[in-house]
């Protein structure tokens, strides 16, 4: 089991080791200690390895992740799992702003709260937050799911495309072109699947409300033709 103590080993050694993993590598369980808020911990993993980070991290942990299963036993700074492609990133604590930004796939689980702009410009990633999310979450979200077990801050889903949003608690306000939508059986199934994948199977899907795009902002309206 490769172990890295970031109090003694440079971060680049860790990321080089992660990038050197090939399909033939046997040793696939990485342990990282003393991250002490370092930036870019375990970014760019492209093989199905497991990475356990013991402590809190700074910016961009797990960024660009493809295939790896990364667990942060602590809190994460801005941009955790930014542009994730696949795999899974789990934050046991809280996450700072723009968690999962621009993510194209995979699952991001934040067990605590996420702050502002969670899932901004998400493009296929699934994000499950155990607590609350801050303002402007899922801004311009294009696809994927954002599940919030707590409350959402101001302007949820502003300028939303086709990302699907589920919130169990209160929504402080909806952003432009974001509306509440009917919860149909297929949505409840999706929620059940995502909550189970996030290890939150005890949370009841029926308690959520669904939000999505009214599709008035990103589609051309013939009545506006004069404006062009």
């Amino acid at each position, binding site marked *: 089991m490769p172990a890295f103590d970031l109090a003694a080993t440079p971060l680049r050694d860790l990321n080089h080791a992660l990038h050197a993993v090939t399909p033939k590598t046997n040793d696939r369980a990485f342990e990282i200690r003393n991250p002490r*808020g370092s930036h870019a911990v375990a970014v760019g993993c492209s093989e199905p390895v497991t990475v356990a980070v013991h402590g809190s991290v*700074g910016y961009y942990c797990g960024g660009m992740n493809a295939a790896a299963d990364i667990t942060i036993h602590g809190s994460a*700074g801005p941009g955790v799992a930014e542009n994730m492609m696949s795999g899974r990133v789990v934050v046991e604590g809280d996450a700072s702003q723009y968690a999962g930004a621009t993510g194209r796939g995979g699952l991001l689980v934040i067990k605590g709260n996420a702050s*502002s702009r969670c899932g901004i410009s998400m493009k296929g990633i699934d994000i499950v937050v155990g607590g609350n999310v801050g303002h402007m979450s899922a801004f311009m979200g294009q696809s994927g799911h954002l599940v919030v077990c707590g409350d959402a801050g101001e302007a949820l889903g502003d300028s939303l495309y086709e990302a699907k949003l589920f919130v169990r608690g209160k929504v402080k306000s909806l952003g432009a072109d974001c509306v509440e939508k009917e919860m149909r059986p297929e949505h409840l199934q999706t929620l059940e699947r995502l909550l189970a994948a996030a290890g939150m199977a005890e949370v009841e899907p029926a308690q959520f409300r669904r939000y999505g795009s009214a599709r008035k902002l990103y589609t051309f309206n013939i009545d506006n033709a004069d404006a062009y």
Partner: protein
Amino acid sequence: MCGIVGLFLKDRALEDRLGEMLSDMLITMTDRGPDSAGIAIYGKATPGRMKVTVQSDAPRTEFPVLETLVRDVAGKSAPITVKDSHAVIEIDREKVDALRAAFAAAPQTFRIMSVGETMEIYKETGLPKDVVSRFAIRSMRGTHGIGHTRMATESAVTTLGAHPFSTGDDQCLVHNGSLSNHNNLRRDLLRQGIGFETENDSEVAAAYLTARMRAGSNLGEALTSALDDLDGFFTFVVGTKTGFGVLRDPIACKPAVMAETERYVAFGSEYRALVGLPGIDAARVWEPEPASVYFWDRDGAAGQAMLAA
């Protein structure tokens, strides 16, 4: 970018280590801004006396002149402590105005960085580690302190453009962000008789808070009104003689992390700045909410946070 750190001690047993802890926090933030660095430390008060911190670009030739000026105003009753390019004059409160007038009339280029019963400000261009060692910050004791390392955006890289900014006795402010209505505000404040040393936007924020507090607001109230009157991006950390405050704008894109234990309240632009603090693993660590005022006061009201929005 810019990096901010702040430390407000609740446990008096930590006061001997304030300078050391704050120095380590600030040095950790060096890569957020290499242009200039500064620290405000709130130390011990002597009843009836004020500390006037003065900076000079030519201390060797100018501080002897400074000494003469001080002696003319206060005789031998005002000891001067020189630390590199800064000098701290301890003087009777009622003689501060006369000292200011004497400095203003002198042809030298030294300038007053701060005036306060307890606060001293040290700031220069260069890296935090150099600023910290030039002014022997590590050995300083005190109740609370604020540090800043700057990546300049709105005005020149000069000593005066470095943070913290002080626009009132024992008051200082550090800022990460940029204000967009600072020229208008500066004009308003000039009309109210507040003077400015620089073209810097952050100095306007400091002066704004000073004006509000002069008009009778406490630190928390002054910060709350700042949300209505300041336009732009900001994370502020503010110090007064007994208080310590934090404010982020409603967009909150400038980072901020806070930690609180029974022994201290700490602020960092990043969690990295906090990891060396005692008991950090058991601390309550959180990201301050947008458009929310946080302030603590040694004269009570500790831990108070109120939602302004």
